[in-house]
């Protein structure tokens, strides 16, 4: 005799009542959740607002009781030719350095994309300049630039008479150092982008007999555009705020040849102890960076939509 067990009916799921949250935890929750906001306010907004507020005072070491002076600092700085020289130097630096680093970075990324042994070695070597603090890089390049005992004039056969940090050459020399430090950053970013591209369009083009340059121009570059723009945005914004290696190499000189906005702010705030004037410099720099960043990010958005095919 066989017996069949009666079909089992699943036991009804026990509807467990959620354990009541203790009142003290309910009361604490809003405070815990607000911690990030408080940190943002204390850590970012408060110093920023305080710094901006100083721009409206006559706060300096020799002024015992600073008072509100409205826009006087802005009027003084905007009518100072040295400020506009700093703006010109900063923009010159940022545009040239960003363009050179982007072009070189793309070129290096394309070379490294061919996964040869040499390419793989260079991939590792490439990151070395990024691992050196810009101040140290400035010191190293300062020694190499020295006409009396530096290695550059010796290797290039320029004798002791070519001055890398002279009136007409200093801006190009500090850009050269920036290019040396940051081109690898662009190259690494672009290389990561290249390796994330789909292979199919390239394989189809190769079957159709398209040349390498045609594929680069019509396939790779449009798809790579968002990655390149990210690199451009990072580098351009960084260059607008450049300070460290320029200060080490030239301190803004000769004359005002390399006096960037950050160096102007440093000189006002730290050397001359004119805190309000330094804050005004930085506030104006912040406006420039903010407006530029907004514009570049909107361009990036368009490029991404275009790369995704959602916008012509």
């Amino acid at each position: 005799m066989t017996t069949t067990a009666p079909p089992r009916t699943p036991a009804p799921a026990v509807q467990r009542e959620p354990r009541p949250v203790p009142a003290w935890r309910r009361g604490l929750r809003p405070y815990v959740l607000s911690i990030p906001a408080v940190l943002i306010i204390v850590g970012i907004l408060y110093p920023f607002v305080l710094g901006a507020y100083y721009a409206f005072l006559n706060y300096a070491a020799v002024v015992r009781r600073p008072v509100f002076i409205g826009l006087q600092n802005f009027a003084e700085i905007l009518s100072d030719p040295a400020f506009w020289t700093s703006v010109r130097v900063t923009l010159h630096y940022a545009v040239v350095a960003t363009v050179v680093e982007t072009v070189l970075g793309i070129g290096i990324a394309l070379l490294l994309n061919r996964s040869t042994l040499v390419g793989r070695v260079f991939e590792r070597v490439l990151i070395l300049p990024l691992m050196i603090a810009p101040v140290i890089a400035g010191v190293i390049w300062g020694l190499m630039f020295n006409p009396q005992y530096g290695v550059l004039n010796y290797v290039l056969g320029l004798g002791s008479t070519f001055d890398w940090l002279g009136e007409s050459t200093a801006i190009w020399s500090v850009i050269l150092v920036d290019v040396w430090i940051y081109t690898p950053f662009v190259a690494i970013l672009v290389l990561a982008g290249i390796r994330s591209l789909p292979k199919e369009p390239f394989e189809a083009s190769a079957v159709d007999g398209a040349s390498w340059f045609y594929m680069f121009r019509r396939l790779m570059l449009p798809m790579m555009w968002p990655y390149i723009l990210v690199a451009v945005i990072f580098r351009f914004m960084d260059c607008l705020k450049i300070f460290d290696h320029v200060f080490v190499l030239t301190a803004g000189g000769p004359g005002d040849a390399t006096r960037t906005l950050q160096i102007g702010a440093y000189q006002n705030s730290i050397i001359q102890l004119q805190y309000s004037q330094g804050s005004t410099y930085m506030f104006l720099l912040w406006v420039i960076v903010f407006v530029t960043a907004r514009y570049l990010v909107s361009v990036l958005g368009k490029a991404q939509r275009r790369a995704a095919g959602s916008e012509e």
Partner: protein
Amino acid sequence: MTRRELWTPNRRDLLRMFGVGGAAVGASSLLAACGLGTGGGGPATDNGAAEVTGGFDWRKAEGTEISVLQTPHPYQVAFQPLLAEFTELTGITVKADLVAEADYFTRLNTELASGAGNYDAFMTGAYFIWTYGPPGWMEDLKPWLQNSSATNPDYDFEDIYEGLRRSTSWDFQVGSPLGTGGQWAIPWGFETNVLCYNKTEFDRRGIRPAETFDDLMQLATDLTDRANNKYGIAFRGSRSWATIHPGFMTQFTREGCKDYEKQGDQLQATMNSPEAVDFTRKWVELARSAGPTSWTNYEYPDCTGDLGAGTAMMVYDADSATYPQNIAGNSAQAGNLAWHPGPAGPDGNYGTNLWTWSLAMNSASEKKLAAWLFIQWATGKEAQTKAVQTGQAGFADPTRKSVFDGAFKQTLGNFPGYQETFEKVIGSTDIKFTPQTQFFETTEEWAVALQDIYAGQDAKTRLDALAAANTTAVNRAS
């Protein structure tokens, strides 16, 4: 409508937020750094000297620990091993924080402006008193010196060279000379600005240092041989106030020039006077024809480094900066160097600008008696004598006449001309600048003007513009 429907950030929104936020954060950090807190204008604490009563006793602050902010320098290096003796003498322990000279004054500015009182005493130069004194960041040491309960009867403040005592004292009134008002620091070590030259090379050529500025120009030019990477004379040229004060200000003064003149209750910049324009033009010409190629970037280590390497034949800078190059093992030219006062002025004067590393007390310190005992000990006869005798890196120019005439002279055997040079200039050595609170701004602008003239601008036009700007700056601040 739920909160989520109100705004749903997509990838692009997030990227945009991060981009703009990143820019804001980057800029805000320095904006905040520019605002150094509100300690600068705050009231200083009481001087405290009057609270010390009774007989003098080194152990009056026994058990205290003080913090001292210092920069690595031959003076500091020579004193470091002696701190244990100070602790043994007083029962006070000293915590010395060292910050490299390039960053030292940035750190000190920030520290003093904060009013936090983290450091009880600190190293300073005389020019810094003009900036740190008016906001009340430094303690007046005169009441401490005058209080016999706080100051050892053997201290002998008058033993410190008069030019040095005067250089560290001022009343902060525009137009007042140095030596008026409070004593804001005690000179600890100092340096005169004179010529150091490669004696071996001079002897080989059968030549001697120049006695007039025109002769110096000719001599330096003759010694310059760019093809063999040798040049006549090194002096500072970087975009810094420090370019003006050593050789330039010394010779500027000897040639009869002044930086400012008092007119009523205002200062008038006179670095564009006919004699100043003439001298400045010559100085820049000297840099161009016989100076280092990268002159606009030269600081004193570059100058002395070239002297020690045999690249520069002469250096016009602090004697203590050239002194280490002559110590065996320190440079290729060690043992070959000698000193000379440099060219006299047309009237034969040897007016010389000085630099003094001095010790000052933070007005926000809460351990002022201990800080004063430390300053008093470090600037006293016994400690300076020991530092001179034991300092491995040398201890150029002790601030006390008794120490110079005693222990220091015995160390000068291998330094031809050092003592003679010192004795020739010391009587006319002090601060040659007119004291004013905008020293760093106006003097850096002066260095920028030299660089502009070096780059080809007309000296008269450039110095006229500099004088106009500096006149406005010094009177605006007063």
